[in-house]
Every structure is written in C-alpha cells, then in structure tokens.
C-alpha cells in the first residue's frame, strides 16, 4: 500500500485520495497502467485486434495463398498444400482475360475519375453562389443520389437502360438522328452487347452516385476562401474561368489531390455495380479486375491461389495510389 502510494506520488496527474482498505485488483491495475503509461495501448487494443483479425491477417493470408496451389481440396484437407513459387502469377500474366479485365478497369477509371471531379466541381461552385435555400435544396437532392444503396442504384439503372420498356432506349429513339448516331436504338441491350456499352452505363451510374461527395467537399473548401479575393478579381475584370484557375483552384488544390486519389481508388474498386449489371461472374467479356478475381476464386473449381495472386496484384496497384494519399494527408498535417 505504502509502496503504491509512493509511486503514485510520482505520477504526472494529480491523484484522488487513496482508497481505503487493501488495494483491489482494479486499483492495482490502474496504478500499473499509469506507471507504465499504458492507457493509450489499452484504449487502442480492441480496435487494433479487430482490424488485425479482419483486415491485416486476411491480407497476409492472401499473400501466402498466392504462392500456393490452394484450392477446395486443400481447404478441406483432402490434398496437401504445396508451394508453387510464382506459378500463379505467370499463369495470370499469360491469361488474355486478365489483360482485358485490367484494360476495362483502367479505362473506366480514366473516364470516370475526371468526369466525377468535373461534375462535382461545377456543382460545388454553383452551390457556393446559390442562395441559402436553393443551395440546401440542390445539395439535398445530390445527397439523396449519394445515399441510394449501390445495389438499389444498379438494379434501377439496369431497368432504365433495359431494352424492353426501359426509358433510355425509348428516349434515344426520340432524339434527332444527327445527335445520337445509330438510327435504331430500340432493343439495344446496354448490359450484354459489349463491355463498352455496359461500362458506359456503369460510368453514368457511378458519376451520379459519387459527384455529390465531391460537390459537398469542394463547397466546404470554397467556404474557407475569403470572398474579397474573387470580388477583387471580378472588379478588375477577370472572367470567372480565369479567377477560378488563378485564385480558387490554387487555394483548394490540396483538397483536390485527396479527392483525386480517393476517386481513383473508389473507381478502381467498382464491384457491386459491375457484378449486378454485367450479370455476376457469368460474362467473362465484361470482367473488370474485381469480377475477374471473384470469378477465379469462387467459380467452380475454385482456385484460391490464383485469386490470392490476383488480389495481391490488385492491392499492389492500389498501394501506389494509397501511398500518394497517405503522403498528401501527412503533408497537410493530418497526423498532428
């Protein structure tokens, strides 16, 4: 008791009066925690355990599988697991389906990322200039698109683009021919005709769902710019285009970097929308990387080794982008 009191006296925080009677386990634990400054470790322990078990350990397992011939028999313990070196990787690189899926994924991101950022920026700039009520109305409408669950949104867009009774083909047929090219759009099947048609539809869907986040973030960034700057430029006769690129954009550039990297990561990860719209893992002409991994890992006969190798390639590609994201966050003082 006296011993613990002495140590307590050296502790950084002022202390409550000593408890009466023999020290309970709880109070001794408290003393131990304080003496060794363990409190933060106890506090992060549960979260860390959860993340380690559900996110970090599976990642390590995926790395292990990618060098093994891990299939359903190995998982059931019927056959022994063997190390196969880089066989899974060379198999993947020789598979034309992989290159097709990679191409679809990269092209999709190349189109959708700029589209989302441009639409989001235009809407954000507009929200900043609208009156208060109007601004709330438009941003609420945009947030509803963002709030729609991806599965609902995918099924809904499939229905709007459906060849039988869908709205889009009907509307395209009503449009003047010089505008929409192809003379007959009725019965045009967006989901199954080819990858370009399917991913055009998915691109519209993804832009619809993700521009609100960009718009709201850009709006919040714009609010931090003092109004006098643009006012002064306006009085001096600068066009809105010029004052955006010379004043607004340089000031909110760090946020654009974060938004750009986040969008790249999100648009690379598209799975739910492509799974539903291209019809699950049945249609290998319309695979993106996510669907290709899922197909290799779970379509019979499942090959967890191949799937693991693919997942690893996927994670490595994303890590490059993530590294940029982490670096820009740290630069902005996110860790302080």
């Amino acid at each position, binding site marked *: 008791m006296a011993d613990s009191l002495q140590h307590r006296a050296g502790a950084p925080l002022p202390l409550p009066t000593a408890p009466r009677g023999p020290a309970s386990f709880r109070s001794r634990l408290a003393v131990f925690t304080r003496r060794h400054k363990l409190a933060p470790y106890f506090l992060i322990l549960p979260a860390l355990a959860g993340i380690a078990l559900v996110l970090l350990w599976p990642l390590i397992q995926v790395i292990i599988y990618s060098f093994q011939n891990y299939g359903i028999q190995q998982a059931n313990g019927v056959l022994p697991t063997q190390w196969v070196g880089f066989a899974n990787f060379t198999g993947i690189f020789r598979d034309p389906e992989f290159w097709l899926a990679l191409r679809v994924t990269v092209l999709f991101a190349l189109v959708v990322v700029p589209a989302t950022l441009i639409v989001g920026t235009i809407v954000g700039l507009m929200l900043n200039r609208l009156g208060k009520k109007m601004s709330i109305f438009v941003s609420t409408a945009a947030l509803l698109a963002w709030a729609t669950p991806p599965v609902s949104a995918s099924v809904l867009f499939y229905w709007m683009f459906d060849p039988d009774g869908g709205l889009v083909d009907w509307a395209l047929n009503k449009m003047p021919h010089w505008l929409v090219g192809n003379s007959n759009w009725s019965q045009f099947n967006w989901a199954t005709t080819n990858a370009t048609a399917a991913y055009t539809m998915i691109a519209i869907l993804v832009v619809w769902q993700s521009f609100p986040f960009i718009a709201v973030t850009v709006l919040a*960034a714009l609010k931090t710019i003092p109004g006098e700057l643009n006012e002064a430029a306006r009085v001096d006769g600068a066009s809105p285009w010029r004052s955006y690129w010379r004043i607004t954009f340089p000031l909110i550039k760090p946020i654009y970097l974060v938004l750009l990297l986040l969008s790249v990561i999100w648009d690379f990860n598209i799975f739910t929308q492509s799974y539903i719209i291209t019809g699950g893992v049945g249609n290998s002409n319309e695979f993106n990387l996510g669907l290709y991994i899922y197909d290799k890992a779970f379509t019979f006969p499942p090959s967890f080794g191949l799937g693991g190798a693919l997942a690893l390639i996927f*994670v490595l590609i994303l890590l490059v982008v993530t590294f940029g994201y982490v670096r820009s966050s740290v630069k902005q003082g996110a860790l302080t």
Partner: protein
Amino acid sequence: MTGTDMTGVGVARRIARGPAGAAIARPVARRARRVKRLKAVSLNAFGVLIALVTLFPIFWMISTAFKPSHEIYSLTPHLLPSHPTWANFSQVISGQVAGGIGGVWLFFRNSLSVAILTVFIASLLALLASVAVARFRFRFRTSFLIMLLIVQMIPGQALIIALFLDARPLNLLGNLTGLVLVYSAQALPVTIWMLRNFVATIPKELEEAAAIDGASGTRIFWRILFPLVAPGLVATSIFAFITAYNEFIVALTFLGQQHSDYTLPIYVQYFFGRGGAQWGPIMAASTMYTIPVVIFFLIVRRRLVGGLVAGAVKG
C-alpha cells in the same frame, strides 16, 4: 460571354465614380443590373435542373413501383402511373415473388440488426481508440494512424477469399454474426479518423479539472468526454450504419444459399438475378430498401455533411 458581362459591371462602376461620367452612368448601370438579375435567374434555373436530373432516377424507381405491369411495359413510358397500385408492394411483402424465399420484412429485420450491432461495436471501439490517438502521445501512434489510412483502402474483393476461408471453420458462414464482425472492423479505420477530429476539439482542461477533483479515468470518460463527443458519434454511427446496410460482396459470399439470413441488398440482387424482369415488384423491393436510408439522410443531413467534410478535408 460572361467574361464581357463582368467587365461591363466593372466599367460601369468605374465610370459612375468619375463626375464626368455621371451622365452616361445611368443607362449602363441599369443594363448591368439587368444582366445581374438575368445571371441570378439562370444560375437558379441551372440549380433546379441539376436537382431534377439528380432526383429523376429515384423518382423513376418509386413511380415504377406503383405502376401496374401493362403500364410498365407500355411502348411510351409515362412519368406517373395513371392507375397507381399497391399490388407490387403487397407481393413483395407477402413474399410470393423472388422464388418465395420470404417476405421483405424478414430481410429488413436482418439488415437492420446487422447494421445496428455494427454501429454499437464500431462506435465503442472507435471511441476508445480515438481518445488514445487524440489525447496521448505514445510509441506507434503515428504508425497506427498511417496503418488506418492504408487499410481503409484495401478493397473487399482483395480480402474476401481469406475472409471466406477463415469464416468457414468458425461457422460464420450462412449467418449474420460473421457479417457483424467483418463490418465492425471494416468501419473502424474511418470512424477512428473521424472521431479523432472531434475528440481533439474538446478542451483538455475539462478532463484535467475533473481529474483534480478526484474523478477516475472511467468516470471522466463517461461523464465528460462522452457527452461532448456525442455529435461526432452521430456522424460516425451514420457512417457505420451505411457501411453495413449497403455492403454487398461479403454478404454475397458469406450468406450463399442461406435465404432466411439474406440482408436487403442480397435479397434485391437475388430477386433481380432470377430474371423474369418483374420490374414492378423489383422496384417495389428496392424502393423499400432505399427509402429508409433516404429519410434517415434527410433527418441527419446537416450533421452528416459536417462529419463527412471533417473526415475528408482533415483526413
């Protein structure tokens, strides 16, 4: 075009300032006012247009859900149902559709229980961890924060193989427990980052004062920190709820053919995937899946925007 208008305003002002220009100032100023009003009107019109285009798909989903089937497949689509009907909804509720795997309330209950449990677990763990990173300086603090930034980027498609194989021997496939565990952990990185920003804004003096008055660490946590960080908890709870309510790939893989444990997204997907193009009932089902989130968002809109921006801009 707008550029010249802008210059017009500037010139008008400059001229109006000089005494010599007083005579010509009036018509120019009037023109400038008119241009300004025109711009305000067109800006608002553009705003309304954006809002309508954005809302249209949601409107179309609800409209289709209320249409009888001959109106759904008619050659010229109509905006509103001419004979609105509840038939699609009653089919979805009674469960005669989607191969009779069950009524929509069952899946609603599954989704809701998974989401609520996820919110509780993730919020509690994230609150503890966020206090640690916002209030203490300790070894591995920076590594922990950077690790969170990195793991939140790892996509579900990359981990699903290992998660599936780990869950199999633990009997976590084909039930909701496995989903709650995975979703809680998945929500943690972002919720910790968001909460950290909230905890950091609470003055440390409050806790120190309570410590001087003899309050224990637990007491300080529950009586002082917790009430002050509650708005932040609302924002992170929304995030965790949405994560669990929308999640697709883990639920798809874990639930397999266990129809009675399907969450709403898996039910809607299953119904859609069975073909037959029963768009009326399918839209009724996805309306019932979507509307609760939409209403929820309308209620918490302000907090959500604040929390999102705090997470995005500072994180």
